[in-house]
């Protein structure tokens, strides 16, 4: 049974390791599906807006990790 738990944990880990990063992606997808088609100024802008939001989430998460990692290293 232990390997079934390991597999479940690994499969979960395939999709989620940083909870806030995963949550931000899901929230943005939800917003993109519900809100973007209604507020985008032109029909062809909403796809790039979806990408832009995901890119910002990736940038914020990577920079947050690098800040935290540098602080941890500096404090020993």
């Amino acid at each position, binding site marked *: 049974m232990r390997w079934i738990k390991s597999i479940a944990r690994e499969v979960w880990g395939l999709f989620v390791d940083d909870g806030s990063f995963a949550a931000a992606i899901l929230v943005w997808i939800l917003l993109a599906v519900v809100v973007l088609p209604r507020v985008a100024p032109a029909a062809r802008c909403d796809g790039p807006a979806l990408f832009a939001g995901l890119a910002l989430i990736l940038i914020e998460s990577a920079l947050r*990790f690098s800040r935290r990692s540098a602080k941890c*290293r500096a404090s020993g």
Partner: protein
Amino acid sequence: MIIGWGHLEATRLGTTLVASFLASLVECVEALTVVLAVGSVRGWRSVLAGAAAALALLAAVVGVLGPALARIPLRRLALVPFHVVQLVAGGLILLFGLRWLRKAILRSAGLVPLHDERAAFAKKAAAMREANAGSISGWDKFAFSAAFNVTMLEGTEVVFIVLAFGAGGAGLLLPASLGAVAALLVVAGLGLALHRPLARVPENTLKFLVGVLLSALGTFWVGEGAGLGWPIPASASPDLAILLLIAAYLALAVCLAPICRLQARVVAEES
């Protein structure tokens, strides 16, 4: 015929095949390292039997579930509209792809240590030497179990990868499966030929590329599922958007790695 090829674009098929091959390659290399480490210490009979048993079990599960999944006419599935399937598959692929891309960027920036197959091999081999040394001569349950577990674990991940790619559209399950099988054959062949861990496989570069491809595919499928538009000529194939997304994610990732490195240096100096 339920799965038609005519409407599928080469870009979508090619991206799915390559992404599935590369993602599966990473998982297979990790499994091979453990199988080789256990086999080199405990002998090959029980280890190969364990790996073969896990592969047989996985093949049986996929053999039962695979054809059933492939026969589901996604576009005609009344209970679950196709755009919902695209949204769910796209969301899962985005979670998976962006996670790999983020990790690859942080590794490129030197903020997360690179995965070292030689170190993993040495660590596992040392653990195998210490564990139940008395049972090595005969049938080695410990070695069988170690090989079975890792093959089952990484194999299940590969099955999930294939299912996530395959769910993105009718007819994508086959290229996704072919990519995974090709990765297994390549890694098994190299493992048999070399008898040592594939330390030269550039794991982080693979994760970087797979992350870019998956993020692009996931964004495209979520966009398609949500009915979003792309800035491409009306006469062009919608799959042109996948190529644009691949280029955009690649440019973003290549720029972000040095920025993260720089920021970490600045923060460290200020602290």
